[in-house]
């Protein structure tokens, strides 16, 4: 399994006061990137619709981080091993 961290800016709103802010995390099956994409789509369809393209790449405006390193190359060939930690974050932008 791999651990998928969801940053606060992509998580569900917590407008009501809650406890200490901690990153939301979920477990996904390890394996080839398309399998991970499928799992993300299944477990959090709203998030997937925003951060992933239809072909399964990371959408413009977002970055993929695996094991504390930003993935610069094409992610389609990525293979995630058990214990890997994965995160997708937005890159702040505006006018």
């Amino acid at each position: 399994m791999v651990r998928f961290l969801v940053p606060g800016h992509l998580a569900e709103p917590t407008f009501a006061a809650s406890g200490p802010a901690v990153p939301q995390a979920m477990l996904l099956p390890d394996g080839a990137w398309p399998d991970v994409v499928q799992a993300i789509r299944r477990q959090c369809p709203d998030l997937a619709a925003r951060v992933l393209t239809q072909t399964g790449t990371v959408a413009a405006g977002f970055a993929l981080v695996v094991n504390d390193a930003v993935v610069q190359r094409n992610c389609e060939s990525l293979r995630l091993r058990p214990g890997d930690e994965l995160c997708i974050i937005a890159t702040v932008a505006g006018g």
Partner: protein
Amino acid sequence: MPDAAIGLPRALRERLLATITARLPQKSFGYLLSAGDRRRPIDFLLFDANIRNSEGWREQFESYGRYFQEHDDAGFVATAEESWRVQRDIWSRGLVEAGAFHSHLRHPANFSGIDFDLHTQRFPRLWHLIVSMRNAASPQLRIFDICGGGVRELPIDDGSSCSPDSPDSPDSPDALDMPDSADSDSFDARDSSSPSNPSNPANPHDARRRPSRDATIARARQVLVLDRAGRPACRDMRVVAAAIDDLYACGDREAVHDLLTHGFLAGAAQRYDDFIAGDMRPLAGGTFTMGTPDVDRRHFCGESPAHAVELSPFRMASRPVTNVLLALMDDRRQPAARSAAQMPATDVSWHEARVFARWMGCRLPSEAEWEYACAAGSAGEWCCDERLLPRHAWYSENAGGTLRPVATREPNAFGLYDLHGGVWEWCRDRYDQDFYRRSPRLDPVAPGDPASHRVCRGGSLHALSEMCRTRYRLHEPPDFIAPDLGFRLARDETP
């Protein structure tokens, strides 16, 4: 339902502004962070690197128009690496992103189309704070939330009893209900919107207690004095405006007659005839559709719903007030260079604008009058097709960042110049983003105490075409000034 305010403690606000100011002219952007409740940020985190001009991004920004081609400091994009470092930092501190923020160097604190596009793509659940540094001595903060397919401005609660940045300041009660005569009018003719009403308990902007009638008259006698040239001796127009408001509010018609009609405002009729009358255009008024239909509201705040408004006939100046005209009241405004004489007067507060208007026998236009005059019968977004806008307006597509003399573009169908672009123009109304939902049909003016934010319209030399739209609404505090903020005169139609 009232909007939930975002709590921005004074200390956090000051620290954020100090940081943004220290980085000028560089743009600042980042996150505001909370411990869990996203309405209560407790800290902020800034990004250092901006790859807006990198290959891939530059082209995308420049596709938004000439402003983004001429200003490579307009727009921002964080790097993926820094975004990740920031994210880890946020987690390590046990905080969460409450909102995103960025600063504007030249523009007001408005939420433009590019902000909407890039924010909603990334952060549909975060609010967005924009800090305008167009007057660095008076930064303006506005917070926007994307909800229900539209954008709403959220009030800011800085922990004091009132928020200076609230878009929805409370109404003050109606002003005097007095016969319509020169002596008994309120500050702005046909206006019941702006008595200072200092004793109004619902008015947290003004903690003063209502002074006695005698004290009010004594104060007016002291402040409403003319110098030898017949100009106001007191140069602080907020003080002058307050003295006039209070004098009307105290209801002593004899004092109004003596101190205003035959005192401070003596000669107004002559000044109007000599300097203003020839430039005024009679407008028939009647019924028109004000605002933007819900279906078209996109990212524009406060423009909906579209609603029918009926206006009485009035007169509107064909051009904004110029330096040479404003110098009639304040000789410090005398332009040093001849070329500046016909430039629109700028760095004018709402208080100064309304005092000048009254001193010239006029008033500021209401927001409804302004919109009616700007549209000139067009139901479109501008008085003309957007492709023709450069013929009518000096704005970001053709002004080159330079203020231009008034009336050097084509007028609209009503013979009025520069309503699009040039300088933002003060209107009489208090800004209320929900006013259109409850405004009266006939001659609407949003009432408010003099500390309330006031409406500005029309865009400026820096404005993108969307900000120059006929129905675009902006607001600033009444003592705010900016190098692209001016005004024009209006007047009731004489029967």
